[in-house]
């Protein structure tokens, strides 16, 4: 199978491309910067400009492909709403159209559980329909719209499946792990509430193997959405402690009431929007909600339909993370 992976320079994209490639498939990667992967054909370009350059960039990237795994997105807690819209919605529409036009038969859209999350606790529910109206924040809202439009393109001969890995982490992750470690090191990582909210996460190799499994299962499960996790929820404080412990920094030991954090997050977010910097704000309302309410999912349908189980346990993940920080 010839597979295009977009957004392969990202933490998860790289792992996905490597996983699919390792299985003997012919992998092409497409992103703005070199992916740094070996054994793949690296094509650079933007997912937003397929139509303008029919013989290069995206149009070229999708040509001759049997399948596309679309990961490229703007992933951030804050930022210009127009940019989220352009990259996540516009970009996805462009990639879907280009793929369809190029005769691609399988399309895996990598989404996020936040597309169906209105802010309340999630305790053991399966993937609910993406809901742009209820999703919190620009990222979740635009990912929700993108998932809906990708699934709407599902048709005979063009199988679309959406997978939503939750909180992907592992050695080399700059999104979650580095931020946690960095903030903990600077003493800027509080526990929200009592840190007891159960949160499920996904070790990066598990996320990659699940996406690979979705690609294999595409013809069987097209039109569906699946949440992907390790299936090992833990109190958020234990997760943070595990990450910090692996990185050799002190785990958070001071506490902010969750409600105060949510309120503060809203204020900080608003200020950041007016005075955007390169740094991320220390707290957003979305993040405060994420860290103070339960997020864990029913994985039975995911595992049965995709015929997949995670191979790296949470504890093994922490060991690998520790090895990464202290080789």
């Amino acid at each position: 199978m010839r597979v295009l992976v977009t957004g392969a320079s990202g933490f998860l994209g790289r792992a996905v491309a490597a996983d699919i490639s390792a299985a003997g498939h012919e992998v092409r990667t497409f992103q703005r910067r070199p992916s740094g992967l070996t054994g793949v054909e690296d094509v650079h370009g933007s997912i937003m400009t397929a139509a303008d350059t029919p013989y290069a960039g995206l149009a070229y990237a999708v040509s001759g492909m049997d399948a596309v795994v679309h990961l490229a997105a703007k992933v951030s807690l804050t930022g210009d709403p127009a940019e989220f819209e352009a990259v996540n919605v516009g970009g996805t529409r462009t990639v879907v159209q280009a793929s369809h036009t190029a005769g691609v038969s399988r399309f895996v859209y990598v989404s996020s559980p936040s597309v169906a999350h209105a802010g309340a606790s999630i305790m053991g529910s399966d993937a609910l329909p993406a809901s742009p109206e209820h999703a919190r924040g620009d990222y979740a809202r635009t990912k929700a719209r993108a998932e809906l439009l990708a699934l709407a393109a599902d048709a005979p001969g063009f199988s679309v499946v959406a997978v939503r890995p939750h909180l992907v982490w592992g050695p080399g992750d700059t999104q979650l792990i580095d931020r946690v470690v960095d903030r903990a090191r600077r003493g800027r990582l509080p526990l929200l509430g009592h840190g007891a909210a159960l949160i499920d996460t996904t070790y990066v190799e598990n996320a990659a193997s699940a996406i690979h499994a979705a690609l294999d299962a595409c013809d069987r499960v097209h039109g569906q959405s699946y949440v992907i996790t390790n299936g090992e929820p833990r109190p958020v404080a234990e997760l943070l402690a595990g990450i910090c412990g692996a990185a050799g920094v002190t785990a958070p030991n001071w506490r902010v009431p969750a409600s105060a954090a949510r309120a503060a997050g809203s204020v900080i977010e608003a200020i950041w929007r007016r005075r955007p910097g390169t740094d991320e704000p220390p707290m957003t309302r979305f993040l405060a909600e994420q860290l103070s309410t339960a997020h864990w999912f029913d994985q039975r349908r995911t595992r049965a339909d995709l015929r997949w189980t995670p191979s790296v346990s949470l504890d093994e993940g922490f060991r690998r993370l520790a090895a990464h920080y202290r080789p």
Partner: protein
Amino acid sequence: MVSAVATLPPTGLAGLRPEWSRLVEVAESGAPGVTHGWHVLDNGAELDALGVIPVGTILCVHGNPTWSYLWRSLLSAATDAAQSGAPAWRVIAVDQLDMGFSARTGGFRPLARRVRDLGDLTDALDLTGPVITLGHDWGGVVSLGWAVDHSDLLSGVMLLNTAVHQPAGDQVPAPLRLALARGILGPATVATPAFLATTLNLAHPPLSTEVKRGYRAPYRTSDRRGGIGGFVADIPVALTHESRPELDRIAEGARALTVPTLLLWGPRDPIFSDRYLDDLVERMPHARVHRFEGAGHLLAEDADYAAAALLWLGDAAAPAPLAEPVETAVGAPAAAWEAAGTHPLWHYLNELQNSDDTALVDMLPAPRRVSWRLLSRRVRQIGAGLVHIGVKPGDRVSLLVPPSADLTAVLYACVRIGAIVVVADAGLGLAGLTRAVRGARPDFVIGAAPGLMAARALGWPGRKISVARFPAPMARLLGVEHTLAELIDLGQARLSAGDDLPPEPAPSDPAAVLFTSGSTGPAKGVVYTHGQLSAVSRALFLQYGVGVGTGLVAGFAPFALLGPALGARSVTPDMDVTAPKTLTATAVAAAVAAAAGETRGATVVFLSPAALVNVVATAAALEPADHAALAGVQRFLSAGAPISESLLAQAAALMPHATAHTPYGMTEGLLMADITLDGIREAAASIANVPTADAAAHDGESATLLQTAVSTSSAAAAASAPAARESVSALNPAGGVCVGGSTATTRIRISALDASGASVGELSVEPDVTGEIVVSAPHVKDHYDRLWLTERASRRGAVEGERWHRTGDVGHLDSAGRLWVEGRMPHVIVTADGVVTPVGPEQRIESLAEVSRAAFVGVGPVGTQQQVAVVETVPPARRVHRAPEPLAAAVRARVGTPVAAVLVVPGLPTDIRHNSKIDRSRLSRWATGILSGGRWTQP
């Protein structure tokens, strides 16, 4: 009154499908040319569309002031059931004339007219059998009227809270008296929607706004509400009321109905209280009855009556269509008892009636001895006295008397004359006791002062009899009609006049209603027949050798009351029976000395765990003579709740010649299994390489009378490496508390759990298979009292003549046939990877030195639950917190399966009575809140 034609309901009413609604023009019988439009709900078209042929029709009649909307969930449930392949029932729910969306006829329609109206409608519909009627409120009366008049079509009757009879001179319920009062009727029922609003507010829990809107839809204006007022005015409060003859005709006609009958009842009904249920049961004694504790007048909204109705119809449609089991007639009682293989409970009271040997000893306040001769005479006197004041066979007598010679005499007197004794433990608490006594609807209450005061204060039903003599004002205040002394005199006079006691009850006659502990929801009444109670005493005889000449020290009431049935000498020790922990070692020694009596026969001691704790704690006060007395004890039992092996061993040391036993059982099946202290040690040795040092099973299973800790004392086990654990799980995968082998006449089987935690496996004795524990014995309960659904769910197995009871406990048998209890069915954790039972993990967690007690619970939806450990630590924690990393890691390592979180609490919630049965359901809800990021509260 205003006339109006029938209309269809507006669309968009919650739960109502427009396709059910149709209008039918019906000619009025006896009034040529007069027709009325009816609105009916009918799922017939839906069934046609499914291509299924209905097996029958359920004809539903609403009451006042509701309409066919009341039955919407039955229509959808019936169609859904048909769709899923179950027998298809057509449901026709009518709006009575002047009600709902049927025509406003402009006239007054008394009961007889309404019954004919319904017949006119079914004629117009060309309804053919079989028909099951279903009615609620005054619709119950109308539907019964139809049933009485259409026996050719009728094949069953279902009723929700209703009444067919208003006893002459008895007042109608207060809310209706008010509505009927002059000047109130019109305004309350017609001019304003007050009556409607009041009715809708009777729902538990309250109705949603949408559903209330549904009920109000046909009654928006006063000219639409004429029928409501008409219905209330038609309540035949007076004998002279025009509808009285018709009501009486229906009430009497109901007695002749032999079709299967189901009565579903909401006890929280200010109008149709339990006394109307009693009346219906009296008229239709073959009826199946289920009282939904907590539900009220709007039972159709409060409880899932539709599922119950379809379940019942399904049962009735099974092998023998709609046939109720008929009690097989037995010959003379003597022959029946012989066939049953047991003696009646009063056997030794007859056999030893001329013996001056001691039958009973009350140690409190001073030793009082009662000979067999005296006990036998008292029982006959009290029995005759009870007959004299009107106690009939089958009447229920609630006993609110502390364990004593008085209680024993009263109890045997009641059972001898065929009255049914109601025994509820004060451990239920006042609220639980009130619910229990009310639900058991005693005809008589025999009590000591505290019981009678509670009965008075809380309005418990039944005529009151006091065991003590009160000053007249006090007696009046408590509503006491008779004292025990009077009964004895009255009875003696009767006996002297040559009136003998009534014939002896037969083994199949009901003898007692015992109440469950109530630790798993409202206490349930458990009905035992005479044969089954006698079988309990036989089981005690077979298991522990309690019989003629044996002394029985009774620190645990249920078994102690059976002393006279066994011919044993019963001794009630000096203790506050409501507080077992007041029993001292010295008091036990004194009771044992009294029990040994003149014959120095064998002595058996029954204790509750709480009593045992105090006996061990007060052992230092024992004198040499006390020790000598205790050395004469042949056996002792700890029954009622789990205790640790070490406690049992300490107690055994006080009674050096006694075998220590702990039985396993429940109110529904006393004495199902038994294990001795040596047996406990053997069982422990069989899993000795399990690293569970000092695993004290503090855990208790709500339905079990007793469990004992399994303790491995091996220091090597404590030191065993994690690698050893894997061999362990192969040996004893599930853990649990060993409760020993089945008693002589008991069979124990396991019904394996499926992946969803349901016990669906065939009854099996295969070792090491975890499932629900199912038991069969001659001494298993007959049925739950007025809890048909509960009874049905508790039954298992279809072999003719066998009664299998689902215990609600989960466990496994080992290869030696020993039973291991792993928890309660509702506490089974159903993860995505399979089921996990709580006791095994708890034992493994409790093997940690820093943990004193653990509970293992599930959070999240069944099927994908996460496992959570909640622990008490050494030393106890002062506040709720997440377990620190080392403890969490240690717990996870011990448990083996994935543990999402470990929480530390100052104390685990336990039952009031034994302080040992952990309320895992409550803990699960609490942990769910904590782990969802909710507020931190105490469990």
